[in-house]
């Protein structure tokens, strides 16, 4: 049903495109333009609502400004996280040639947890706490990106890249990483465990704002690289054989994409902790809305859809249900359900 709805939308969107190129009789925006404007307005409305709603201090007072600043930090965190998951999952789908797997389902998150735990385990809690800050985060990110690239690059290149095998290997690896982490956590002292937990269970409101500029910079850089290569991404999505025929070094392109995915996932996980199904939900929604779209439309749309979904959930949970800490949990619950339904309806395609 959902698929059919997408099919209905798409031809209209495509037909609308040439209308802008032709001679206009009066001002009639194309459906695409309307979509972008509506999405933009929705995001702005959500941002304003999140920042300004239920601020009981007098407007302009110091307290008012403090609250607005804190909320703005949350909004910025949400935008960064939505970008990482939305765009990261879309390019992961492009690189792997399927629209079921996500980096998290294949254990990128579990890998992050394992690395954090190993750091505390090997170096000790005090050392890790003392070396906290940007330098340590940067080193961790580099390690994570390197390891994920090696592991998944090896998995996805080569001829054994059968989807079922991959899914199985990914899930088993993820479980393995998680068990090893749990094992090491059992042997930590309570204070070390405390240091570790603070890193593993991030949430949106509790995110460390000092990482924000760096995370945003990484997102902008990755976004710029992807935007420059958007036509190449369209070709990569056609699969190994067709893209080789069209003159791409498919293996190299896929590796590059996997590096960028690892980068985005580690940035997001550092900021708010792991989210398994959020990227999947955003990407699936994006494909439905975009119809037959090229990456020039998919990439910005994924960021937009992700931001809307996360901001909406955050606003509703924080101001309607007073349960802001649950945002990631709810997203996972809904996302997991959608993932299951999608899997059961469409199979492993």
């Amino acid at each position: 049903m959902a698929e059919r709805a997408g099919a209905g939308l798409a031809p209209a969107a495509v037909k609308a495109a040439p209308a802008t190129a032709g001679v206009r009789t009066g001002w009639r925006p194309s459906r695409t333009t309307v979509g972008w404007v509506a999405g933009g307005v929705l995001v702005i409305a959500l941002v304003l609502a999140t920042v300004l709603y239920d601020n009981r201090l007098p407007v302009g007072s110091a307290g008012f400004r403090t609250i607005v600043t804190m909320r703005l930090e949350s909004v910025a965190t949400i935008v960064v996280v939505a970008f990482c998951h939305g765009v990261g999952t879309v390019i992961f789908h492009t690189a792997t040639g399927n629209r079921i797997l996500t980096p998290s389902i294949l254990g990128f998150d579990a890998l992050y947890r394992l690395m954090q735990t190993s750091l505390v385990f090997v170096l000790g809690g005090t050392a890790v706490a003392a070396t906290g800050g940007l330098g340590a985060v940067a080193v961790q990110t580099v390690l994570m990106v390197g390891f994920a690239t090696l592991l998944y690059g090896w998995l996805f290149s080569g001829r054994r890249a059968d989807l079922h095998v991959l899914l199985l290997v990914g899930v088993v690896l993820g479980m393995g990483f998680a068990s090893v982490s749990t094992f090491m956590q059992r042997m930590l002292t309570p204070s070390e465990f405390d240091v570790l937990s603070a890193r593993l269970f991030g949430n949106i409101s509790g995110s460390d704002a000092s990482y924000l500029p760096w995370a945003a910079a990484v997102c902008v850089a990755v976004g710029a690289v992807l935007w420059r290569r958007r036509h190449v991404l369209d070709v990569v999505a056609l699969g190994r054989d067709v893209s080789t025929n069209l003159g791409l070094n498919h293996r190299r392109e896929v590796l590059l994409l996997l590096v960028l995915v690892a980068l985005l996932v580690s940035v997001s996980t550092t900021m708010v902790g792991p989210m398994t199904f959020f990227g999947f939900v955003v990407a699936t929604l994006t494909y439905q809305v975009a119809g037959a779209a090229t990456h020039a439309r998919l990439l910005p749309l994924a960021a937009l859809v992700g931001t809307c979904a996360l901001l909406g959930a955050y606003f509703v949970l924080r101001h309607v249900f007073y349960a802001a800490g649950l945002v990631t949990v709810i997203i996972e619950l809904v996302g997991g359900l959608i993932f299951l339904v999608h899997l059961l309806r469409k199979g492993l395609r």
Partner: protein
Amino acid sequence: MIRLADVSKSYGSVRALGPVDLDIPRGGITALVGPNGAGKSTMLTVVGRLLDPDTGQVHVGGLDVVTARSKDLAKVLAVLRQENHFVTRLTVRQLVSFGRFPHSGGRLTAEDHAKVDDALEFLDLAPLAARFLDELSGGQRQRAYVAMVLAQDTDYLLLDEPLNNLDVRHAVSMMKQLRRAADELGRTVVIVIHDVNFAAAYADHVVMMVDGGVHLAGPPSEVITSEVLTEVFRTPVDVLEHHGRPLAVYYR
């Protein structure tokens, strides 16, 4: 010209191809025929650099397909496999436009658009250009894939079983279109084909393959003979003459 020298390929301990030494002349249609598992598709994919050979060298139009840059090769040879499944939902025009990627890098110029239109026109796809691939019949989709590699504007066109899943009418019109591509556009077309009679009726050269090697290569009248076919397919085959071309009869 396509030149294979000492080319072989094994899957595990099973040798699928070779060693093969073969020259495929420039121009016209060359058909690779032979029984199942003879290495026809393997040879085509090796020549199309989708598969690296274990030994030997392949030159297409002077370029070594293993060492030359993929980007340069994409302007010389186009290869299309049997199975094509895309995750992206594409219209026919979008698909055919991808054929221009090696030339334009994705930013289509007026010339690219003209080539795409030509390819659509050539395969009678113009009325279907705005349709999505998953809304087409098997035959129409097959034509759309061929239109993509045609739009690539390469001298060499390698197609793996382009008649797969086509009924008689569509198979005949596909072969006529490939014939026109060879005659009117001067392309060198190499196809893997199961039906020896299509090879006999349309090809200029026939390469008969058996057990990963080249059994015989030459014009249809020399390769499609009763003795050769009976031996290669291990089935009694009569060869008649029909409109000056051989016609194999093997139904009983």
